């Protein structure tokens, strides 16, 4: 692995350095193979070493890019490179193992060889030394014997000097013979002893070593007379010598065998020819009178003989009396050599200096058997092959010039087919120098070693081969695995890359969509605005008007679609930031249900809202988004539900309540962990809010009886552009975005949505939202207790579900209910109820057939037990037969019970006006629009109870009729409805917070649709009102305001404030409505009210505006002042900071404009904070908004103050928001200042502060 990396690195650098193209290309091709590992390496190691040069990085990048394009040709070259790597590793391994082997072998061999060599040298030396010593011994002994013989001979001869006669002569010879025998017999190794007298007489003892025969040889005595003359001249010697030789030839010798031990004669003397048997040393051999040595041969022995000769001098030492010769066979030396060679091996031989063989270790003959006389052989002529070759080799090597000492040590002489050691030694004897040669086969000494070495080598090589093979296999396997892993990694990396790209492109898509829809929205808004202008134009015919209305409807639909896409992409690109404001959840949902019920009328679907009582009334969150969630869900349900019902159920769960403590960080953490989809921003919000708020998990179910969703699609329906059934697009339209947006929003709010299995037909969507409830709202639930009021509610409603749910709820709250689903049932119940009290009711005859059920009966009984029950009869207008004129009869019938019971009429949205008039004429004042839900019911019951109380009071006071108050009530309740409509204005689809203290948000576009759909009598007027802030309206408002201001400006404004408070409206005493006669106009002027509200909603706020652009400064100032705020404008951030710091100066400049406010405010408050809010432009000269904010926040540290700062930026789509919030700003507005958004932002900030 490390090698691998190293290689790639080195190659990479090589690549960067090489200039030539083709080389570069080649390396690059190779590098391609390393691509996976390369990528991997770079990713893992880039952080460690800094790259050596920028150029290399560049290369790397280029290569990386190139890899992607070359991925197809990648494969082959990668195989190739892997192969190369494997090969390289294997070669390295082979070299390593080979080296190890060789070294091991070498060391083991060398040491043994060396020690063996020294040993062998010693051995050879020793071996050779011994025969030479033997030789030396032989020479010595021979010499000794000779000298002894000479000494004895001298003695004897001196005794017998000058023999007189023959007898004496014989006596001398006898004595000599005895002495000689004694010596001869004492030395067994002697071959012969000869004495040659001056006169030619010869005496000799000879021992044949082969058959161990001893013989005495002597010449015939008769031949030799006493020669006593001429013994003193040297020349005589010569003559003697010659004579002796010649004489000897003629002489007759006898040979007498002797007993080898005793020397007695054992046989007869035989005549033999002289010199036949032995060499007799003569005078010639001692020419100068000293001892001489030579090697002789004899006929009878096949070994050379060593003979020594010494003269025997007379007493005067002047003449030689005799010559003594001693010969010794060299046979024993050869014998010794043989023995030695037998023990060891090899061959030995001794030669004279001239090269004649003296002794060998073999049995090869040493003498040439020539015909006449045996002679010594040269060593090179030896019959033994080895000796011959050795001698030849030596001769070849050294020629005749043998080294001075004759010592030669050669180790690897190749003789024949074998290696030999050849060593020669030189023995320098006087007159007989000797050379010894020993030839030992190398095999004998080194054979084992060589064999062993060879064996070890073989073993080592085979072992290393095995290791090599195994190693190669291992490497193969390893690299295979590694390369596989690398490939996998490469694949993974490319996958990741692809995924990242895909994500990026999807992100781009979202971004693009967001931008696009943003861009599209603007012209759409313009189109709608223009249409509004057109609609407000007077000179339109009815057809034109309807066409334009249609166009407007379509445009709003298109805008809604765009908004959806924008929402989706916003959520997907993580830009959506949820608002965090308090809102009335119940009210929102009621508004929603109201709205959809209109849509449902055509579908024969009832929309039911079923919220549990413990639901918190006010929660914190993004109301618009919450409403959007339910809008989408209910829209979907309506789309797919042809008949039946749609129920929106809601209940809640307090995660903290089980612990009894309001704040439990652990618990919250846990819950946060579960909500993984939560965004950071949201989390921040949460963190901020959890300090004050309780978390509450709200559960909702949207239950319909539509076609349902296939269980396999339960998950996929939440994907974008996904619909449960492809055919739905054709049938119902839609883009499939709705549920996706819902899921995204729900996830963002920390909840979850899923489709739940449902019994029966339809779909059941269950979702939970995590919202916080403000703790300061002490009374969260409806404080309901109707038990004391002994109310009896008769629910005569068409829709089964809503009736059921309402009655259940009422019963739970202690209200007795009776249900009736149709006209006949109603009449029967009425009859039963008022049976005792009204005897006049039996003119209705068609309901007699109706049997009274047991349940009803028991209820009736229980009702009869009540004392003074108050009957409330809720009648659905749909129960009346409206198609014909029967409804009038029915009304009359019901009118009979008037007085005994309160009638509440549930009106349809399309209920015609004359019916309403008729009902009103009959004195029925409680009319509410469908659908009926809890809040409406509560209102009804409260109204009834109040009315009863009032009645009781009046009865006590005995004053006046009730009708006027009823008139008031009528408008009152109509207005309850209308508040829902008024709340949203036409072009406001985002902001949820309206100016009042009770924020109500209804999607404005839908609202318009809704109104446009209802063909009410006063369409034109209402349309005009609801269409929004057109110029004409402005004009009207202006006019109206002018009128009012002419009369009394302060009172009118106060009045407006009062009216603007929907809460006070809804809970107002019925009798309080002073201007109830003009209720219709009030209703019409709803939107204007809104504007009026806006105008004064910032009453008394002191706002510092830091803005450098004069235009904006002016616009913003006017806007704010219109709403009652007092504005101080400064030109840059520095001034803003200064203005905040010098309170006195600020107070001065404000003095003229803020007279009234200052009077109203307490002085201390002004001192604590000079402004309630700062609007800060982000980009200003000298000091920009961010800096200024930082400075302000810095100066606030420690004082406990926190002036809200709202950023104004010119970047419409920028992500500056984070930056703004980071430096400490509280909110963020984009620069074409949206009037409402600004107001709501300011209000939310200042309200939060004051609360």
């Amino acid at each position: 692995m490390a090698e691998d990396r190293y290689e790639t690195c080195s190659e990479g650098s090589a690549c960067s350095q090489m200039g030539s193209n083709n080389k570069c290309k080649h390396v690059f091709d190779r590098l391609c193979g390393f691509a996976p590992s390369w990528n991997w390496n770079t990713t893992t190691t880039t952080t460690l070493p800094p790259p050596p040069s920028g150029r290399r990085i560049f290369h790397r990048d280029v290569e990386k890019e190139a890899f992607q394009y070359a991925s197809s040709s990648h494969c082959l070259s990668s195989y190739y490179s892997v192969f190369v790597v494997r090969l390289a590793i294997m070669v390295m391994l082979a070299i390593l193992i080979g080296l190890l082997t060789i070294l091991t072998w070498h060391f083991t061999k060398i040491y043994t060889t060396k020690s063996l060599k020294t040993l062998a040298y010693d051995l050879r030396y020793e071996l050779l030394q011994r025969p030479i010593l033997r030789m030396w011994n032989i020479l010595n002994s021979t010499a000794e014997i000779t000298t002894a013989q000479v000494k004895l001979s001298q003695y004897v001869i001196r005794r017998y000097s000058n023999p007189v006669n023959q007898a004496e002569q014989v006596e001398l010879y006898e004595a000599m013979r005895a002495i000689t025998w004694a010596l001869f017999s004492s030395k067994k190794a002697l071959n012969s002893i000869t004495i040659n007298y001056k006169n030619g007489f010869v005496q000799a003892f000879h021992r044949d070593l082969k058959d161990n025969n001893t013989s005495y040889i002597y010449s015939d005595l008769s031949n030799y007379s006493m020669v006593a003359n001429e013994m003193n001249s040297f020349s005589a010697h010569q003559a003697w010598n010659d004579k002796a030789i010649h004489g000897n030839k003629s002489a007759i010798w006898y040979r007498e065998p002797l007993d080898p031990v005793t020397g007695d004669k054992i046989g007869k003397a035989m005549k033999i020819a002289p010199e036949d048997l032995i060499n007799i040393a003569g005078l010639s051999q001692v020419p100068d009178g000293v001892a001489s040595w030579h090697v002789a041969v004899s006929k009878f022995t096949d070994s050379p003989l060593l003979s020594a000769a010494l003269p025997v001098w007379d007493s005067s030492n002047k003449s030689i009396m005799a010559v003594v010769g001693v010969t010794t066979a060299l046979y024993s030396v050869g014998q010794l050599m043989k023995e030695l060679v037998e023990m060891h091996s090899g061959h030995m031989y001794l030669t004279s200096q001239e090269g004649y063989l003296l002794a060998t270790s073999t049995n090869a003959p040493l003498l040439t058997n020539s015909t006449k006389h045996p002679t010594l052989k040269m060593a090179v002529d030896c019959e033994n092959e080895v000796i011959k070759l050795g001698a030849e080799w030596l001769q070849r090597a050294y020629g005749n010039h043998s080294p001075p000492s004759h010592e030669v040590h050669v180790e690897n002489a190749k003789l024949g087919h074998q290696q030999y050691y050849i060593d020669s030694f030189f023995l320098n004897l006087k007159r007989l120098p000797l050379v010894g040669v020993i030839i030992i086969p190398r095999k004998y000494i080194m054979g084992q070693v060589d064999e062993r070495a060879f064996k070890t080598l073989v073993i080592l090589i085979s072992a290393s081969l095995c290791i090599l093979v195994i190693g190669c296999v291992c490497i193969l396997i390893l690299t295979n695995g590694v390369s596989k892993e690398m490939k996998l990694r490469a694949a993974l990396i490319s996958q990741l890359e692809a995924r990242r790209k895909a994500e990026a492109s999807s992100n781009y898509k979202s971004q693009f969509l967001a931008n696009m829809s943003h861009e599209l929205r603007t012209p759409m808004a313009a189109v709608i605005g223009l249409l509004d202008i057109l609609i407000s134009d007077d000179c339109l015919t009815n057809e034109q008007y309807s066409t334009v209305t249609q166009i407007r409807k379509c445009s709003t639909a298109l805008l809604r679609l765009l908004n959806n896409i924008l929402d989706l992409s916003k959520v997907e690109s993580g830009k959506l930031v949820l608002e965090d404001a308090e809102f009335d959840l119940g009210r929102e949902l009621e508004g929603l249900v109201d709205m959809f019920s209109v849509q449902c009328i055509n579908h024969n679907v009832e929309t039911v809202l079923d919220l549990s009582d413990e639901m918190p009334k006010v929660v914190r969150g993004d109301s618009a988004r919450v409403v959007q969630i339910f809008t989408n869900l209910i829209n979907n349900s309506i789309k797919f539900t042809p008949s039946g019902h749609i129920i929106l159920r809601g209940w809640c769960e307090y995660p903290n309540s089980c612990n009894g403590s309001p704040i439990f960080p652990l618990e919250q953490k846990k819950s946060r962990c579960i909500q993984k989809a939560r965004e950071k921003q949201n989390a921040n919000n949460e963190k901020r809010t959890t300090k004050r708020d309780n978390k509450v998990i709200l559960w909702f179910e949207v239950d319909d009886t539509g076609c349902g969703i296939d269980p396999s699609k339960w998950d996929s329906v939440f994907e974008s552009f996904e619909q449960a059934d492809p055919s739905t697009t054709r049938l119902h339209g839609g883009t499939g975005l709705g549920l996706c947006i819902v899921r995204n929003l729900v996830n963002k709010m920390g909840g979850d949505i899923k489709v739940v299995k449902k019994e029966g037909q339809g779909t059941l969507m269950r979702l939970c939202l995590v919202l916080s409830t403000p703790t300061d709202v002490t009374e969260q639930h409806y404080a309901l207790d109707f038990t004391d009021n002994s109310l009896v509610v008769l629910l005569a409603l068409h829709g089964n579900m809503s009736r059921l749910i309402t009655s259940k709820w009422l019963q739970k709250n202690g209200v007795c209910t009776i249900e009736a689903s149709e006209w006949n049932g109603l009449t029967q119940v009425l009859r039963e109820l008022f049976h005792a009290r009204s005897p006049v009711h039996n003119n209705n005859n068609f309901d007699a057939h109706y049997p009274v059920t047991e349940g009803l009966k028991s209820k009736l009984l229980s009702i009869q037990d009540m004392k003074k029950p108050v009957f409330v009869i809720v009648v659905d207008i749909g129960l009346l037969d409206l198609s014909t004129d029967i409804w009038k009869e029915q009304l009359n019938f019901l009118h009979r019970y008037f007085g005994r019971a309160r009638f509440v009429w549930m009106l349809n949205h399309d209920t015609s006006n004359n019916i309403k008039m008729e009902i009103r004429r009959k004195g029925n004042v409680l009319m509410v629009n469908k659908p009926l839900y809890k809040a409406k019911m509560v209102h009804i019951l409260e109204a009834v109870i109040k009315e009863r109380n009032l009645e009781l009071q009046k009865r006590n006071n005995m004053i006046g009729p009730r009708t006027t108050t009823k008139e008031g009530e009528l408008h009152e309740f109509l207005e309850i409805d209308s508040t829902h409509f008024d709340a949203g204005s036409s072009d406001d689809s985002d902001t949820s917070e309206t100016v009042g203290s009770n924020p109500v948000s209804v999607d404005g576009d839908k609202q318009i649709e809704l109104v446009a759909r209802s063909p009410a009598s006063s369409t034109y007027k209402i349309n005009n009102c609801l269409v929004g802030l057109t110029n004409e309206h402005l004009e009207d408002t202006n006019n109206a305001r002018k009128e009012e201001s002419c009369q009394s400006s302060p009172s009118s404004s106060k009045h407006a404030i009062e009216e603007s408070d929907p809460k006070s409206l809804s809970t107002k005493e019925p009798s309080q409505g002073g201007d109830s006669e003009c209720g219709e106009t009030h209703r019409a002027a709803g939107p204007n009210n809104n504007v009026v509200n806006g105008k004064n909603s910032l009453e008394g706020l002191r706002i510092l505006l830091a803005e450098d652009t004069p235009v904006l400064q002016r616009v913003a100032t006017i806007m704010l002042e219109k709403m009652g705020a007092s504005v101080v404008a400064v030109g840059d951030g520095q001034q803003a900071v200064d203005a905040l710091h010098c309170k006195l100066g600020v107070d001065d400049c404000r003095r003229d404009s803020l007279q009234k406010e200052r009077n109203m405010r307490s002085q201390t408050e002004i001192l604590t904070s000079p402004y309630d809010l700062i609007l800060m432009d982000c980009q200003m000269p000298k000091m920009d908004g961010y800096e200024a904010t930082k400075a302000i926040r810095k100066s606030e540290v420690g004082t406990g103050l926190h002036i809200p700062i709202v950023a104004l930026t010119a970047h419409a789509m920028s992500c500056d928001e984070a930056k703004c919030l980071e430096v400490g700003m509280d909110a963020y507005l984009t620069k074409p200042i949206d009037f409402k958004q600004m107001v709501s932002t300011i209000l939310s900030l200042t309200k939060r502060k004051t609360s």
Partner: protein
Amino acid sequence: MLGLGADLLWADMNRLLAFLFHQGVLDEQFLQLQQLQDETSPNFVSEVVNIYFHESEKLLRNLRGLLMEKEFSDYKKMGIHLNQLMGSSSSIGAKRVTNVCLAFRAATDHSNRSGCLRALEMLEHEYCYLKNKLHELFQIEQQRALAAGVRYPVQNN
């Protein structure tokens, strides 16, 4: 007679406004501006727009000067000017001017001189157009106000 004239002028004004909206010269922000005009500040719109013109002319002059410099390196300053112009334009709802400003700023961000010059020319053109149209509008408005002033007591029923 006069009331009728006021109506006609009203229609004219609406038409002109519609035209400007249609062309994208103005957007809803202008409507908001108009809504802000009431009896306490009767000439608010024209006042603001006049400030705007005054300011914008100064800015345009500065921009041209900056762009005409030999070594024009002060794109940052131009960006600041453009931001101001953009902010004020968007505040009065001059949409096309705002858009051109956006393009201009993109050009300055990229230090693209030819782009800047083109954008400046477009900007001047748009600006002149806007100025003319708004002047026209204000003239009608003035006439209408006069006419409405006559009509005003009549409607008070």
